[in-house]
């Protein structure tokens, strides 16, 4: 394997494994054939990175909402959604909300974070599920140090539920495949 191939192959990791298994070798061939005489084309690497992220995103979108979540994970998601509502209601109506701009903004941002966490759980991705648990654990730990953090103990119930549901969630994840299971087939 040439140095050029090695470098391109490293960049192909931007694609998910399931995509690389289908297209990896032919993309590598095309990259090598199209490479300029003086080595790697930086623009090619950027476009490979962008396309890789798009493929990852597309796989996540197709997985979203597929299958049935384990009950504890489902409950954790519902609690997170409830916390979104509480935070945004607090931002909108609490007496110290709109009058205190920083608290008002913090409630909105925390609500958005909970939305993101709920979506990440629903994405059927081992990495994102672990990231949610890691995020909640870190914020919990930080809340012991800094009592001003809004998360504090609010997140302990979903955190426990997610840890309890870990094994069932991992077992329930549908196997990845390319092209995704329910392709959109409408020509533009």
């Amino acid at each position, binding site marked *: 394997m040439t140095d050029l191939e090695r470098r391109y192959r490293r960049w192909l990791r931007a694609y998910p494994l399931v995509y690389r298994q289908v297209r990896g*070798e*032919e993309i590598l*061939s095309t990259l090598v054939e*199209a490479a300029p005489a003086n080595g790697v084309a930086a623009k090619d690497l950027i*476009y*490979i990175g962008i396309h890789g992220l798009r*493929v990852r995103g597309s796989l996540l979108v197709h997985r979203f909402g597929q299958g049935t979540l384990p009950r504890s994970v489902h409950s954790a998601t519902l609690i997170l959604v409830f916390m979104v509502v509480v935070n945004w209601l607090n931002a909108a109506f609490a007496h110290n909300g709109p009058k205190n701009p920083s608290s008002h903004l913090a409630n909105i941002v925390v609500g958005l974070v909970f939305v993101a966490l709920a979506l990440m759980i629903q994405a059927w991705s081992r990495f994102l599920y672990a990231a949610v648990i890691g995020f909640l654990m870190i914020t919990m730990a930080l809340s012991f140090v800094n009592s001003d953090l809004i998360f504090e103990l609010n997140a302990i119930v979903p955190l426990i539920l997610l840890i309890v549901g870990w094994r069932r969630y991992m077992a329930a994840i549908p196997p990845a495949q390319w092209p995704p299971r329910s392709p959109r087939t409408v*020509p*533009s």
Partner: protein
Amino acid sequence: MREPTFFVLTALARGPRHGYAVMQDIENLSEGRIRLRTGTLYAAFDRLSEQKLIESAGEEVVEGRLRRYYRLTELGSATLGAESRRRVSISKEAIRRLGLAGGLS
């Protein structure tokens, strides 16, 4: 239909091509104006395959490297034909309105 998509379909209109050949063909067809990057090309291949406009036409290994060939499907040929006629029609109208018809023949 966006221009790069039109060019990819046009490049495949003469028969099966592999990725690099499509890139070269597009560069020639566009007189150097469009140079598709590999990531963009495979994004287009993914999209067009999903839309059933192109399909894989086999593969071969050349100097240890895999080449996969693509070709137009019937739907792809029909779509390219319709788009080409539409573009010709618009171009003719533009030429007529500019009063250039005499100078072009």
